[in-house]
C-alpha cells in the first residue's frame, strides 16, 4: 500500500532539477531522444523529401 505523503515529506523533497540529475534512466532517455529526434529523424525526413532526378 502506498504511503501517504505528509507536509514534512513535501518540504523535504529535493528540487526538480536535483531529482532530474539524480535519475540516471531519465537522463538516458533524454540524452538518446534529443539527438535522435533533432538530428537523426529530422535530418532523414529532409533527405527523404529531396526530389529524385528525372530518369
Amino acid at each position, binding site marked *: 500500500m502506498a504511503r501517504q505523503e505528509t507536509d514534512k515529506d513535501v518540504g523535504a523533497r529535493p528540487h526538480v532539477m536535483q531529482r532530474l540529475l539524480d535519475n540516471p534512466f531519465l537522463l538516458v532517455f533524454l540524452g538518446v531522444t534529443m*539527438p535522435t529526434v533533432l538530428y537523426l529523424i529530422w*535530418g532523414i525526413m*529532409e533527405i527523404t523529401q529531396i526530389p529524385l532526378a528525372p530518369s
Partner: protein
Amino acid sequence: MASIAVPGRQVAEERFRTCPDTGLEVHAKAETLIRVNVLTAVVFLAVGGLFGLLIALTRWQAIHLLPAEWFYLLLTAHGAAVLIFWIMFFEVALFYFTSAVVLNSRLATPMIAWVAYVMMLVGALVATVAVLQGNSSVMFTSYPPLQAAPHFYLGLILFAVGMLLTCFIFLGTLVVAKDEGTYEGSIPLATFGGLTGAIIMIFTLASGAIILIPTYLWSLGIISTIDPLTYKLVWWGLGHSSQQVNVTLQVVVWYTIAALVLGARPLSEKVSRTAFLLYILFLQLASAHHLLVEPGLSSAWKIFNTSYAMYLAVLGSMIHGMSVPGAVEAAQRRLGHTKGIFGWLREAPWGNPAFAGMFLSLVLFGFLGGISGVILGTEQINILMHNTLYVPGHFHATVVCGTTLAFMAMTYLLIPIFFQRDLAFPKMAKWQPYVFGAGAAGISLFMMGAGTLGVARRHWDITFTDALISFDYPATAFFMLGLNGLSALVAAAGGVMYVVVVFGSVFAGKRRTAAEAKSNPIAPGAVALRTYGSEGTLKLPGTIVLVSVFFIAFALYYFINWRFLAGIWTMS
C-alpha cells in the same frame, strides 16, 4: 585483500581490497578489467601513433616517405587505432573506475564485461587486419561508394556491440551501488560525468549500428546500394558523437586528477552537473557541423543543430573550462599558496606528470581545440576551412592535446592505484607530458595553419605531380607541413616515453607497499573525489584573468575569420 560482506541484500561474497593511496574499496574483478583495458589501449596507441608518424613524414614534402597506396592505407589504420581503439579501451577502464571504484561498489556482471572485452579486442583486430590487407583504405569515415572488405565493417560492429555492453554494465553498476547502499545521496561528480559519457556513447553506438549493419550487408552484396547522404548523416551520429564521449571523459579526468592530487572540489557541484546535463542534451547535435556544406539538408536543420544547440554544449565546456582551473586555484589557496594572482599556479605540482598532463590538456584543448571547433561549427565560416587540413588540425587539438594527454596523465595515477607499482623512470615520466604536449600542439597548430592556406586534407601529394591541372600552394604551406612533421617527431618521442613508462612500471616497476602508499600517497585528496561538495568560492583572481585571456583570444580569432570570409566574398 579483505572480503567485505555487502550490506542490504544477499549477494555472492565479493573480493575487495582497500586502496592505501585513496582509501577506496576496490572490487578485485573491476580492478583486473581496468588493468587489462588500460594495457590494451596503450598497445593500440603505440601502433596507431607509429602509423601517424609515418603519415606526418609523408605530408612533409621534402621527405614524402610513403607511396600513395600506403599513405591512404595507414591513414585509415591510424584513425581506427588511435581515434577508436586506444581511446575507447581507455574509456572502458574509466567507466569501471568511475562506477564501481568511485562508488565503493562491486562491478555489475563482470563476466559480461569480459565478453565485452573479447568482442572489442576481436573486433579491433579484425578491422585492423582488414585495413592492413590493403583492400579497405576507406579512411575513418568509410563514405560510400568507397567500399571496404566485409570483415572491416564486421570488426567495427563487433567492437561497437562490445562497447555498448560496457555502457549497460556502467548503468547496472549504478543500480547495484544504489541497491546495496555503497553511497548516500547523489552520485559523485566523477560518476555523474561517467554517466554522461555512457549516455552519449549509447546514442553514438546506436547510430553506428543503424548505418554500419546495412553497410556490411552492402559489402556482402545483399543490399544493392547505400545512399551516401543518409550514410553521412547517420554515420556522423557515430563519428562525431564518439568524440563528444572523449570530451566528456577527458573533463571527468580533469576533475578526477584535480581532486586526487590536490583535494580540489568543483566550484559548484550543481553548476558542474548542469554543465554535464548540457552535454547530455545538446552535445551530440554538433555532429551536424560535418554536413554544413551538404545541399540536401536545410539551413534550419543545420543552424538549429550547430549554431543554437551546439552553443549550449559549448557553454557546458566553458563552465568546465572555468570550473577546473578555478577548483585548482581554490584548493591551492586553501593549501596556503596565496601569493599574488598566480602564486597558486607557480607553486602547483608541475613535477607531477598527472597534474602537468591534466593542466596542459585543459589549456591546449580550450585554446586550440575549443576555439577552432566553434569556427568549424559556424555555417558561414566553416566554408573557409571545410575539407582542408584545418579539420584534422582541429581534431588533433581536441583528441590528442585534449583527450590523449588527459588519459596519459590519468595513467600516472592508475598505475600506482590499480597495478600497485611505483612509476618506473620517474624523470622520464616527469618530462613526458611536456614533450608530448609540445609535439601535439605543434601538429595541431601547423595543420590548422596549412589548412587556412587551403591545403586539402587526406591528400598524398600537394605538389600535384603529373596532375593534368597543376596548382601551386604558397611556400608557407610547405613550411607548415615541414613543421608539422617536426612536431610529429617530438610527439612521437613523447609517445615512446609514455609507452616505456607504462610498460616499464607495470612489468618491472617497484611494488608499492601499503606502508609506502601511506607515507607518500599519490592521491591525498581522494575524499574529494568520492563525496559531494563544492569549493563554494569565487575569489579566484588568477582563474578570472586566465578565463578573460581565453575569451579575448576567442573573440579575436572569431572576428579574424569573419574578416577573412568578408575578404573572400566581396560584395558589390
